[in-house]
């Protein structure tokens, strides 16, 4: 299928998309991307453009696609951070809505998700813990694959996932979930 996709065969591209798009979109939504659908589209356009240079099996392909998704997410965060810095109007700082811009973006993303308690619970995690947990749970990547993707050692990934689970368990206990 990868060979067919490299040749631009529409059926192969569609098969890849239908196989991976839900998980990619879920990963970006779990990361609280502001425009997860647009990012997903960008990810798969990037996949098509990078297909010729990709070498590896289908398992490696899955990891590669999520590495693109992860980079797109990081890019979006940086872009948003810059736009927040650029968009601050001095007159607005004294107004009643001052400081609400940052919260608006995340609230908007949360509202769009329409998710329940599980997605909100991810907010208790650090960025690394969240990335590791989502890549393991949604992308279905192994510890080694996640380690390569994030540029960490496998031991560090194992530690991050243990701590992520511990944090979630504690949070849920506080929430009265049994």
């Amino acid at each position, binding site marked *: 299928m990868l060979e067919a996709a490299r040749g631009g065969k529409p059926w192969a591209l569609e098969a890849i998309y239908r196989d991976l798009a*839900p998980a990619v979109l879920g990963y970006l939504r779990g990361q609280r991307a502001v425009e997860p659908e647009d990012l997903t589209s960008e990810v798969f356009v990037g996949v098509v453009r990078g297909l010729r240079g990709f070498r590896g099996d289908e398992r490696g392909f899955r990891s590669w696609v999520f590495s693109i998704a992860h980079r797109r997410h990081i890019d979006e965060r940086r872009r948003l951070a810059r736009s927040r810095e650029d968009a601050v109007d001095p007159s607005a700082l004294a107004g009643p809505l001052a400081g609400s811009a940052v919260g608006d973006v995340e609230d908007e993303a949360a509202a769009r998700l329409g998710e329940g308690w599980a997605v909100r619970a991810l907010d208790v995690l650090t960025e690394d813990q969240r990335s590791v947990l989502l890549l393991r749970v949604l992308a279905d990547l192994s510890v080694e694959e996640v380690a390569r993707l994030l540029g960490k050692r496998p031991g560090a990934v194992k530690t991050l996932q243990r701590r992520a689970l511990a944090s979630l368990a504690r949070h849920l206990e506080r929430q009265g979930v049994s």
Partner: protein
Amino acid sequence: MRPQDDYQGEMDRVDPRLIEATLQGRETGEPALDRAALLVADLRRVLIEETPPEAAGHLEAMAVAARDEVRGSAPVLSNRRAARRRRLASMPLAAALVLGTGLAWGAGTLPEPASDRAEEAVAAAQERSDAGTEAEEVTEVTEGPEGANHGEEVSAVATDDSLQGCRKGMAVSEVAGSKGNKQGPGHDPCLKGEEGKARGQEASAKGQQTADDARAKAQDKGGGGGGPPEGAGPPENPGSQGAGKGTGKP
């Protein structure tokens, strides 16, 4: 010890297989892990849905990207096609060179320097053709920088003593001219001269025969045996006989 530390310590002691089971959303019998497993299962349910409704738009974007990728490699294909076209276009020129100078050279009718020149020209044409250059550039090969030695090559052919007469003239003409046989590969002007010479010899033999016959007839009739036979000798000039008479003034 704070509760957070308790959890971290507890998780650090958990069997890695239970951690993996929790990440799969399966219950393990450990209350803390089971709560986490419940959350993991809910994350999967909420976040991984069926193919999103935007799929059509995304697929379209992918198709556009795929077309761009193909188009990105298109110039290579079109260049190859153009090169092939140029090769095809330059082949008649190379063929003309082969037929023009090459036939003469192949038949051994050109002396060595001329043959070398023809060989070089054809090789250069083929080389340019393989390199995918324009047909016009192939034409330039015959008139370009190599043309600087043209005079020397013509001189070399002209001073070559291996050929004489018409053949030598032809060889010099081949090199000095357009390096092609403009009159066609089957044409050989030297052959024309030789045919003329043969025809002249034949006519001369016929005339001799006619004179001998006339002489024999005159002898048979017995009269004026000393006069030249008809058609054998040069005709008498009547004017020369009366020149003295005619030129005197009355």
